[in-house]
């Protein structure tokens, strides 16, 4: 290679990506920092690991309410005993430099919220540049020490592992651990997957909790806003990220209260069909079969989308079968017969009944043959993946062969 500088102009790996924001405005940095204070309040905080920027705000709502242990035991059955003192809960949400994870993704803004007095306090830790990260993490660790129940939305797979990585990168000897981590995405998905296309927090807020965020920023713009800021860009775009983060935290607290109410007393909370179905499945898992059956029935009465109906009827049929109430289970299976996975299972269940209980192998064989036909139709229509088709095909063929042997004269 010729002289270094000359050679560099040919190196494709050094060229900016199309659409990348570049260029440093050193004079802009200090100006933007001042601007940030005037837009948000807040101040510089110092600790053993350096300094960072911190904003603290009190909101009147959502106000704390007593929490219902049985509601939370239902959602997180493995976690016992669940601390249900609202003062111990800490809501957390991060704004990051990317979504891909890995050691090069930073949480440049960490927001936490907790109930205090009769209102909701939000504290936000912000690194004005990368060097402020250790101090930001130290402040967060102290706050986590005071509130031991961590509440997030998708934090189990995103925010918390990312923060663990940050603590390790900053060489915190022991990574702080909350005593309990409740990720509200899981119950949200169970309750609203039937009625919402996306269970993103803002969608749940709009359609379930009934409030609209108004002029919120698109999440995809967040990393770019931060990269602009550290290079001396204006403060207003990043101030909007702070507000977005505050909305996330308050929305999360409202969601927690809503979950508390409907899970604590689903029978009398005016739940929609899909919600009842989700709760019924949780009840079933935690061994409350009788209540679960009532809610499955109620969810069908309230009305369910087709997928939800299949699910509820299948669960009811399986429950009836377990209790050997074959009249009920057979009636439900017959309603379910189709080429869908639930429908094929219905064929299979009925065939099992006729083979082993009613001792009618011929009838069972007819059902299995019909199932194979429905399966093939389904696959040809493109509604089933090849992999799934193969598995069902093998499973039904095994049964068919056995039945054919049984049916031999």
């Amino acid at each position: 290679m010729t002289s270094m500088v000359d050679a560099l102009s040919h190196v494709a790996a050094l060229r900016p990506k199309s659409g990348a924001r570049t260029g440093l405005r050193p004079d802009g940095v200090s100006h933007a920092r001042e601007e940030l204070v005037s837009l948000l309040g807040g101040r510089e905080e110092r600790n053993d690991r350096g300094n960072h920027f911190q904003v603290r705000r009190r909101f009147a709502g959502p106000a704390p309410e007593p929490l219902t242990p049985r509601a939370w035991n239902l959602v997180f059955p493995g976690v016992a005993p669940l601390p249900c003192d609202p003062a111990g809960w800490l809501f957390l949400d991060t704004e990051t430099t990317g979504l891909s994870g890995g050691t090069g993704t930073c949480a440049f803004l960490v927001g936490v919220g907790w109930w205090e007095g009769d209102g909701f306090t939000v504290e936000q830790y912000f690194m004005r540049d990368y060097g402020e990260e250790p101090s930001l993490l130290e402040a967060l660790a102290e706050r986590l020490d005071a509130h031991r129940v961590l509440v997030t939305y998708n934090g189990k797979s995103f925010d918390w592992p990312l923060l663990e990585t940050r603590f390790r990168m900053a060489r915190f000897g022991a990574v702080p651990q909350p005593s309990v981590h409740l990720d509200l995405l899981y119950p949200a998905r169970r309750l609203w997957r039937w009625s919402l296309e996306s269970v993103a927090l803002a969608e749940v807020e709009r359609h379930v909790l009934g409030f609209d965020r108004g002029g919120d920023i698109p999440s995809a713009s967040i990393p770019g806003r931060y990269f602009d800021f550290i290079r001396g860009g204006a403060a207003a775009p990043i101030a909007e990220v702070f507000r977005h983060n505050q909305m996330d935290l308050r929305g999360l607290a409202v969601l927690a209260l809503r979950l508390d109410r409907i899970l604590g007393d689903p029978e009398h909370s005016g739940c929609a069909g899909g919600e009842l179905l989700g709760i019924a499945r949780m009840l079933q898992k935690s061994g409350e079969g009788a209540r679960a059956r009532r809610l499955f029935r109620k969810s069908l009465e309230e009305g369910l989308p087709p997928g939800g109906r299949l699910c509820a009827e299948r669960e009811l049929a399986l429950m009836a079968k377990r209790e050997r109430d074959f009249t009920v289970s057979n009636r439900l299976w017959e309603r379910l017969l189709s080429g869908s996975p639930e429908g094929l299972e219905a064929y299979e269940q009925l065939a099992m009944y006729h083979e082993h209980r009613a001792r009618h192998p011929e009838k069972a064989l007819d059902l299995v043959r019909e199932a194979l036909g429905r399966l093939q139709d389904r696959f040809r229509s493109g509604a089933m993946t090849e992999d799934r088709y193969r598995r069902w095909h093998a499973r039904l063929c095994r049964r068919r062969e056995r039945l054919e042997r049984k049916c031999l004269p």
Partner: protein
Amino acid sequence: MEVGDIVRQLAPEDAPNEVVTAIEHFPAREAEWAPMPAWVRPELVDAYRGRGITELFSHQAEAVERIHRGENVVVVTPTASGKTLCYNLPVLNAILDNPDTRALYLFPTKALAQDQLVELQDLGGRLGDAFGVFTYDGDTPADARRAIRQRGHIVLTNPDMLHAGILPHHTKWTRLFENLEYIVIDELHTYRGVFGSHLANVLRRLRRITRFYGRDPRFIFSSATIANPGELAARLVEGDVEIVDRNGAPSGEKVFLFYNPPMVNRFLGIRRSCINETWRIARVFVHHGLQTMVFANSRLHAEVLLTYLKRDNPQPPGEPEIVRGYRGGYLPTERREIERGLREGRIRAVVSTNALELGIDVGSLDVVVMAGYPGTIASTWQRAGRSGRRKGGACAVLVASSRPLDQFIVRHPEYFFSGSPEHAYIQPDNLEILVNHLKCAAFELPLSSGESFGEADLELLCERLAESGYLHPNGGFWYWTQESYPADAISLRSVTSDNFVIVDETGPPKIIGEVDFTSALSTVHPKAIYLHGARQYHVERMDFAERKAYVKQVDADYFTQAIVYTEVERLAADESAPVEGPAEKTHGDVRIRSQVVGFKKIKFYTLENVGSGNLELPENEMHTTAYWITLRRALIDTLPFSVSERQDGLFGLLYALESVACLLMMCDRVDLGSTIGEGAPDIAGPTRSAEGDPQAGEWFEPALYLFDNYPGGIGQSEPLYRLHDLLLRRTLELISGCGCDQGCPSCVGPAGETGEHAKAVALAILERLIGEHAGEARRQP
């Protein structure tokens, strides 16, 4: 029937020595034993005894002793000499001594890692499951990954996974990195050229991370025989590595044959097709019940041979095939099944690309037939080593193609059998490669202003990366400031990671394979015949944005070959010197533009050209390094040939030079490109050329370019410049030693394509370039 008899039967009686040019017998070799070292723990001694190992081969004893002492070691011995014990024994001993100890094994392919897993699991079973061993690659299910990070004492992976899956997530691997004592790198010789230059940078990143966790692990390499294993290993770790190369393993008797397909037209130097001859030979072996492995040098040839052999051995519908193909594009489950079939003897013949060259355990086969010289002495021995292993009576046959390199080797068997093997070159400081890995390094751990990364001026590069928006300086560190994940965009094995997916639309659309971007342009361009699993597919269309090629199954009697145009522009000369001729040799920077402009249709079996087509595909441009010879006008003017004859001669000479350069550089042919351009400074500008299609006008002072076929260069140009004299002498030996009259595919290219006097012109130019020593070179056999 003896294998040797079978081959002699195949050779026509009139000129047997011209067809079978070498029959080398390798007698069985006795083992050299050494006792198990005293420091090996008794339970490990028992575990190995359970596998039938009570003593070590001398090279194993030396290797484990050195590793135990804490040295970095490279073990260089042939296939099936018990290389894995050299690293497994000391690593397991260290784990048994201290259960916190961790080791990372890198294999160039997933299949090799799978193979090692089986062996280590067996040892683990004998040791009461005292350690955890796992493979970690793209096939590892997400839910198993956490357990592997925690409990894997030995993690078996590949450089690609280390690069994109482990290093960027090192905080999840704290247990491993905090206790990492050994890094094992198997099949070292495969890490040459681009791949090796990438690996060197991945290892720079790995060492940064181990330093972060306070470790300084030792490196253990194993390698097939190459000329510079110690140097290559030392460049990869940027530290000292001890060589262990005195083989103590026994071997069975073996015959190695060189087979040169008979001449069908002596005047034109045309021989029978190497593919067809390989097929003929392989089918006889298969017919005599010998388990046979056929190696082809390209996917295309592998597919053609597979088609032929399958037709010879039809199986009733529903019966398992006894002839199978094996190459990179096959799905993992299919490959595992083939490997098992070979070990169990159900599969009687397998046609493979270099995918089976490495140490994948498929048991011992009876015969290996190679369709064409694999390109290097090292891989030829590797492939030959697939037959026989430790027990007797095995055979390897090398069937020469008409390529110059093949002809040189079969006509100079002593070069192969007694010659030293090739050097493996890498260029870890190739800026394109280095900068890409610097991005990854910054993502993994902010770059400190004080640290070093290869030979690069780190501060300067970081500033440039900051200007481009990748990095941001703060408090003495450079931080990654992109949303994206840099490792995802960087493939260790090719120019870009943009693979084309092949979608079969014959029935419901399904994906049948993938090819990397560069080969996609020449293999799945519109109207190409794409061969996969011995089936032919016609490429209907190519979607560049989506990186997809849509194909439909057809039954054609031809396959296609792409025609590529290349254009070169000189950017700067690093070194230049006048040489005999008069001429000038130079190495420096060039810009290469290439474009697939059309294709030829070639008929199966007869291999005749049955048609062609034009294509409009995007141009590829790269900045790279080249070595070139500029012929002065004075030389050109005194050649007693016409303008067009001179042109033909130049292309013929280039053809031969490139072949010999590959031989000297141990590079895959794809790693080296060649072209001719205008060399006179006043006229020099971009000039185009296409092989076998000389343009009308003559160059004033033609320059013959050999360039690194990779952006930024991979370090082959300067060595070629230094080897200028040797390169010319060997090229003269090749052309003058060729039995053809007016040029043939084995020296300057086929007379029909290169022109009638190409051979004479090429020889005349070479003699001028070599000067007074030319006579000596010509007298060489």
